[in-house]
């Protein structure tokens, strides 16, 4: 049933449509994971380690067990025997933390689960959890700050990852002989995803079948992992995630709270609801790891790049390895004379495992590269935009494959023009307005365009509505809506008549909601399933006694909910009624094909930032952001722009506010939403986002390359570059906090 590889047909589909799930979200009707109370339900509340490293010696549970409403407490000594998931991405059973809950008594990080209290009410569970006493053997050997390891010159700390190292040409020689050289270090602090909906599991066993309501960006992955962990067939596990209070990567792969909740539900024979607290969320569900980076650029006097070296280092965890590969995309960004070399290293820290966070790797690496480019421009006394234009990569430098579609030059020009870049005075501090000094900065934005295998189901119902189902998720990106748009476009049936089902592992297997690949992955599968359902409709119509008896199916078209052949037509509802059918549906799969060997797929964009610096009160604010992005075709430009605007806000957080801090004892200092500073509405600058519209039909039949990540990339660098233009201070360590500006 595999059909569409993306090249047989081209769809012309792009429309600004309000979200089809909007009414549910706006009336409180959207059911997020914890938004249910099952009959006979109980409440789980985790107990977590208060030490950073060492051993759990014993738990004192008597007082907690005697608390009102307590049903049981699960921990190392009484937990079920389970198996670790094989943790394979290819087999779609990867988890974020391979270690099972309570697997042993080793403590690897503060916030690690040491027990789960289950009680009849949330209040009772939480009160009892506070009464659990833990005795530890504390280890003084721990690390929570990788910056402390850096010598500030030469190689970065950590263990080099051989799989990450890649090179083209001879970067070392090219750098040595370059007339203009630059060699700087950059760093970005740990960022917390800070999803508004805290991770939650509601687990229920019925006989030997597990149903778990989870806030998940990957119901199929979680279903497969639970199947392996509990040793039961995948069809006996159902993971449901109809609505997700954002994920940004932290909900891609299952965390241990889901496992312990499922165990508790099985043992008690009652549903268990576990909702993490914000602090538990911050300590046990991943983060963008702190990264240290070194960038070396070699250029000639005209600004032509001769070489790029980019070395990265990020935090990993003893409880789960994560490689952010911050330098990975760098060789694709510019024509660097055919000479580039990148490496990446890992340092193990006593924190929970890091995990992907929006534009993983690239958001961090882009900051270093795009800041270095600005520094090179300053060194060359060259306009930063002109420097980038001079080094435009006409083909993918790492493979010499042509880009499938690349309109970066237009992004640069369009954004520069709308921003008023020509009014920039390159002399730091030269642009003033009252108490404030104005700074302009820019950066190139980029994100790889990926596509995965996907299955979907497409159905025509007797009542005239459509059913479209896929085991992917809508994490706020608008997947429900673009699937409905697609179904409506394919059939001519109004979007209001399309019923889209996502977020259920019982549906045909769909992709993770991550990596900006859901649109390009899901829509081809939807159209393939549509083809399958349509061919069944045609079979009915052309069958003996059918309305188009013996007609050639290829002469039949679908128009406005009707099958049309020549001047004859039949309502699809009539066709179903005539055959006494409630539903005709087809299931099909789609996956990328040979085009993957012919082109390099990548989105590009440009972001320009105006900052305002009031030196009299040390106040820095982002005043204006203009971004132009080429993502191929935006299926829904309204929701797509929203993604980019949201990425800009997250970039302001990365550039100015966000850093998870650990003190000298490894204590997580700002483990809550008051002390971990996120942008609020008052921080929102004037933002103008423009999406170019050049469908990339080489990528898929819809011409869409996805939009979730790219809006974030470049923003921190553009802020940093604008800060230099305003202050003459070059801050290479994100975020640009007040004290850094004062001490620089």
């Amino acid at each position: 049933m595999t059909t569409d590889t993306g090249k047989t047909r081209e769809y012309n589909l792009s429309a600004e449509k309000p979200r089809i799930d909007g009414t549910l979200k706006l009336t409180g009707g959207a059911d997020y994971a914890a938004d249910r109370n099952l009959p006979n339900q109980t409440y789980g509340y985790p107990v977590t380690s208060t030490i950073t490293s060492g051993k759990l010696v014993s738990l004192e549970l008597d007082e907690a067990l005697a608390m009102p409403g307590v049903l049981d407490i699960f921990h190392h000594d009484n937990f079920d025997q389970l198996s670790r998931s094989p943790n394979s991405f290819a087999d779609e059973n990867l988890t974020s933390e391979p270690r099972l809950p309570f697997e042993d008594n080793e403590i690897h990080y503060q916030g690690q689960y040491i027990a789960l209290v289950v009680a009849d009410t949330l209040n009772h569970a939480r009160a009892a959890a506070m009464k659990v006493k833990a005795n530890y053997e504390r280890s003084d050997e721990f690390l929570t700050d990788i910056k402390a390891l850096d010598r500030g010159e030469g190689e970065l700390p950590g263990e080099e990852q051989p799989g990450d190292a890649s090179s083209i040409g001879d970067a070392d020689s090219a750098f040595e002989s370059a007339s203009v050289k630059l060699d700087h270090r950059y760093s970005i602090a740990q960022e917390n995803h800070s999803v508004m909906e805290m991770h939650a599991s509601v687990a229920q066993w019925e006989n030997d079948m597990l149903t778990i309501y989870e806030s998940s960006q990957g119901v199929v992955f979680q279903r497969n992992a639970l199947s392996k962990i509990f040793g039961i067939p995948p069809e006996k596990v159902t993971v449901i995630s109809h609505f997700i209070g954002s994920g940004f990567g932290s909900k891609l792969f299952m965390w241990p709270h889901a496992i312990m909740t499922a165990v508790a539900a099985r043992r008690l024979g009652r549903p268990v609801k576990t909702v993490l607290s914000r602090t538990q969320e911050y300590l046990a569900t991943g983060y963008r790891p702190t990264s240290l980076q070194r960038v070396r650029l070699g250029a000639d006097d005209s600004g032509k790049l001769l070489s790029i070296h980019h070395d990265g280092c990020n935090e990993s965890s003893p409880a789960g390895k994560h490689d952010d590969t911050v330098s990975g995309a760098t060789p694709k960004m510019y024509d660097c004379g055919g000479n580039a070399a990148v490496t990446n290293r890992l340092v193990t820290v006593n924190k929970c495992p890091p995990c992907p966070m929006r534009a993983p790797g690239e958001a961090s690496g882009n900051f270093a590269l795009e800041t270095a480019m600005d520094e090179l421009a300053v060194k060359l006394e060259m306009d930063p935009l002109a420097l980038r234009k001079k080094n435009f990569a006409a083909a993918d430098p790492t493979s010499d494959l042509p880009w499938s579609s690349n309109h970066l030059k237009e992004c640069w020009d369009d954004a520069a023009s709308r921003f008023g870049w020509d009014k920039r005075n390159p002399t730091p501090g030269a642009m003033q307005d009252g108490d404030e000094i104005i700074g302009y900065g820019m950066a190139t934005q980029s994100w790889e365009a990926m596509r995965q295998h996907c299955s979907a189901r497409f159905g025509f119902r007797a009542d005239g509505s459509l059913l479209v189902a896929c085991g992917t998720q809508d994490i706020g990106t608008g997947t429900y809506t673009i699937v409905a748009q697609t179904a409506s476009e394919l059939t001519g049936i109004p979007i209001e008549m399309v019923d889209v089902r996502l977020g259920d592992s019982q549906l045909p297997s769909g992709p993770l909601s991550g990596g900006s690949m859901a649109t390009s992955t899901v829509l081809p599968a939807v159209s393939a399933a549509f083809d399958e359902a349509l061919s069944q409709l045609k079979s009915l119509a052309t069958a003996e006694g059918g309305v188009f008896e013996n007609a050639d199916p290829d002469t039949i078209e679908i128009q406005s909910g009707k099958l049309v052949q020549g001047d004859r037509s039949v309502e699809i509802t009539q066709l179903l009624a005539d055959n006494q059918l409630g539903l005709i549906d087809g299931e099909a799969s789609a996956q990328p094909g040979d085009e993957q060997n012919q082109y390099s797929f990548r989105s590009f964009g440009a972001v320009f930032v105006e900052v305002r610096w009031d030196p009299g009160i040390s106040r820095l604010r982002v005043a204006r952001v203009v971004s132009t992005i080429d993502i191929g075709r935006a299926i829904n430009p309204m929701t797509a722009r929203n993604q980019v605007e949201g990425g800009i806000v997250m970039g302001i957080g990365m550039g100015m506010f966000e850093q998870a801090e650990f003190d000298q004892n490894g204590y997580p200092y700002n483990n809550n939403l008051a002390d971990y500073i996120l942008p609020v509405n008052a921080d929102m600058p004037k933002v103008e986002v423009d999406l170019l519209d050049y469908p990339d039909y080489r990528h898929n039949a819809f011409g869409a390359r996805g939009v979730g990540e790219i809006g974030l990339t470049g923003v921190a660098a553009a802020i940093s570059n604008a800060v230099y233009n305003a202050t003459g201070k070059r801050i290479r360590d994100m975020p640009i906090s007040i004290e850094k500006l004062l001490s620089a």
Partner: protein
Amino acid sequence: MRAFELESVEAIDQAVSHRRVHDGEAFIAGGTTLLDLVKLDVMQPEKVVDVTRLPLKRIETLEDGRLKIGALVSNTELAKHEIVLRDYPVLSEALLSGASTGLRNMASTGGNVMQRTRCPYFRDPDMPCNKREPGTGCSALDGINRNHAVLGTSEHCIATHPSDMCVGMVAAGATLVLEGPDGQREVAFEDYHLLPGDHPEREHDLKPGELITHVILDTPRGGGQHYLKLRDRASYEFALASCAAIVSLDGDNVSEVRVALGGVATKPWRATAAEEALKGQPATQENFERAADAAFTDAVAYSHNGYKITLGKQAIARALRDATARARA
């Protein structure tokens, strides 16, 4: 959250009776501090006494021209009261710079006076903290102290007082009315909050069983007034440094001046040295900066908060400048 009893009282004498004189009881009004800290198990009341039905919701001008504010007046109501807007704009600005729309709607005047520090070590019962558990040590001294105080600290505690409202009240001048089992008494607002010294657990001059019933603001000082709050993000964050300034001019000279600071001190801080340095002097930027320097003469910086000395001075100089501009307007 731990279990507690809940009692509602209808009259002040009921609220302050002698039987409350033990540690296990806490008053609740807006709840924004108490419930936050009970959830964290930092405050551990056996019983919570709901005082929201007490008749303490009025704002009235006294015969001597002072403004008497009931302890249950919400932060929003107080900030937007016409007399406060007209006569005490520095207080209104301070209130509106604090917290968020929703929290200001909940928080009471008396509760804001009783706000506890935001020191993360204080807020975690697993961490040593002299304020929460005397004698256990101060985790902030050697830990992360970016948000901590540089004025009024001791070797036992460097926790910052978090309130904006209190800073406005110190600048405006105020008196607290306290009702207790042994009757009513008044305390100057500036004397109410205590420096940590050797006993950081003693935060204020409220005797067991007493309840704040009113805040009485001094007669209006006139002049130009301004509250400036500096922080990382633009809203919904506690001050890293803030300044309430009231400036009266006699020609080009400063005739009267009040300066109070938030975000940099262990209590709502009256910067008398700054006032003395500026009073009678020409209202110039140079003199504003000199006054700002004077305010921080005795400041002590810790490992992460040295920037607050600069930031605090900047807050003073700018607040004085803008208050002066208003005085001239």
